[in-house]
């Protein structure tokens, strides 16, 4: 009879949550750091979901933030509508969760549509088309005045907090991990490895490619919704090509195909980004030199180039830490 063992990852996650909560409750951590942790967790969702498409299934999506945008706008519009009509609507949390999921589903639908070009296009061309789709989504939101157009959707109620974001991130990791470490996951990996051979061992590659895009888009939509309810706004510039490239840099830095790598990179790069922002402002203030925030992106782009030139496999390559990898019964 099998013993019920609590998986290592669950324990580690639980510890993480407890520690952060405790530190914050006892004022040992200020709200600013917690805010960055919240953002890092959301980027984990974005990175892991992009990794499913690019890293596991071997497709090339350059418009990932477009999916996040759909999630942000859909969920944001829902909550602002509901709470404008009835500011003290009961079950606020429930409504929030439902609207986030609605955002995810809307994003998944867009991902489903974008999955189809992926069937006939490879590498470079797929990249351009996904880039184009991402830009089209952004342009559409920029032009819909109902959701604020170029000013963005403002006044979104602040429902996102550490607990909600943590749970979402935790579920994302577990679901995607369980998917990858299963026969379905191996089917997706085989498409990456050799699509023709995959088809010739009976894998419906069409189904799995579209599935990868849909599932990846779903979680990106969730992330977008969480963002919108954290920053209390959704703005077209948050979901453009450069933002998609930032997520791309994360999965490459962490190791394309490694969930662990994506998690580490998401945290590292979010903190790095903040650190750079503060550092640059500090240098600018103290020296009086006109150093702008653009230098942050200069560093980012150099980081990407360096990774591609010197260590394409990133931090983890395609390996997982033992926390994430499910031990198979022999």
């Amino acid at each position, binding site marked *: 009879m099998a013993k019920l063992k609590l998986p290592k990852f669950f324990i580690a996650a639980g510890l993480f949550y407890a520690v952060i909560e405790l530190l914050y409750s006892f004022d040992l951590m200020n709200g600013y750091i917690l805010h960055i942790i919240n953002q890092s967790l959301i980027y984990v969702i974005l990175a892991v979901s992009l990794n499913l498409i690019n890293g596991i299934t071997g497709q090339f999506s350059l418009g990932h933030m477009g999916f996040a945008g759909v999630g942000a706008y859909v969920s944001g519009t829902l909550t602002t509508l509901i709470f404008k009509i009835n500011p003290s609507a009961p079950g606020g949390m429930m409504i929030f969760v439902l609207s986030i999921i609605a955002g995810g589903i809307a994003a998944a639908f867009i991902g489903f549509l974008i999955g189809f070009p992926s069937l006939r296009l490879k590498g470079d061309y797929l990249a351009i088309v996904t880039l184009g789709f991402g830009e089209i989504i952004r342009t559409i939101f920029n032009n819909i005045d109902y959701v604020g157009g170029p000013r963005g959707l403002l006044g979104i109620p602040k429902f996102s907090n550490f607990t909600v974001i943590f749970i979402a991130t935790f579920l994302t990791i577990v679901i995607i991990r369980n998917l990858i470490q*299963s026969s379905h996951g191996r089917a997706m*990996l085989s498409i990456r*490895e*050799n699509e023709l*051979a*995959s088809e010739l*061992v009976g*894998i419906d590659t069409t189904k799995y490619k579209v599935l990868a895009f849909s599932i990846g888009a779903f979680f990106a939509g969730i992330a977008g919704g969480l963002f919108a309810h954290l920053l209390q706004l959704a703005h077209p510039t948050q979901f453009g090509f450069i933002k998609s490239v930032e997520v791309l840099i994360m999965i490459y830095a962490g190791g394309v195909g490694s969930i662990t790598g994506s998690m580490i990179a998401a945290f590292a790069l979010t903190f790095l980004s903040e650190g750079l922002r503060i550092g640059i402002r500090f240098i600018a203030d103290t020296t009086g030199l006109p150093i702008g925030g653009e230098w942050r992106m200069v560093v980012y782009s150099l980081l990407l180039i360096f990774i591609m030139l010197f260590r394409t496999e990133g931090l983890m390559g395609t390996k997982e830490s033992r926390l994430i990898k499910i031990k*198979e019964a022999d």
Partner: protein
Amino acid sequence: MSAQLTIKGMTHYFGGLRAVSNFSYEVPQGSIYGLIGPNGSGKTTTFNLITGIYTPTEGKILFEGKDITGAKPYKIVQGGIARTFQNLRIFSNLTALDNIRVARHYTMKSGLASSVLRLPSFMSEEKKVKAESAALLDLMHLSHRAKEEAKNLPYGELRRLEIARALATKPKLILLDEPAAGMNPKEVEELMSLIVRIRNEFHVTIFLIEHHMKVVMGICEQIKVIDFGETIAEGAPDAVAKDPKVLEAYLGKRGA
């Protein structure tokens, strides 16, 4: 008794180039048939047409009575035809075991939800697939490589792995594309007995492309010879070997 695989008048053009011309063949169930011809004669294209990678410009392909002409490759595979590739197409970054397991995937009934939730039905199916895959590795003397990434395996073992992977799709017919390529004489001997063993133990039909005359003469019951996409001879190996047209195709006019 009608043949398991029937190809009727198959012709295929790549743009203006005719790669296969009026190809007709009947391969009976349980047989070992061969397809030979000089390089570039259209052999691999024929396999690509049978497995649905290309749809023939003309002609029909029938498998166990069903018309599979132009069907999608994965459906043809699920219908019982497997193949190996001339230039190995292994899943390099997956383990040897995973290479096999992927080929078993379509037989699994567990959906996405049960795999994400790790339901008992999913767990038992995975266990079964793992055991079956391990058994296939064992058959090919590759058990010691089960957890090894395929890219680390030597060439000869990769060839065996591809055959094992083809077997894993539960085929009724296996198309082997130059299985003996790059093998030394001893390996060729082992391959020959392996192919016959597979046919006998798994009750599969074997249709193979080969350049190694020893293999063709040794195990094929019937062979077809093509050149420039056209059939130039067909019959038992001994008869075909003496056919002057065949000799001319391989050795040129003066060598006949």
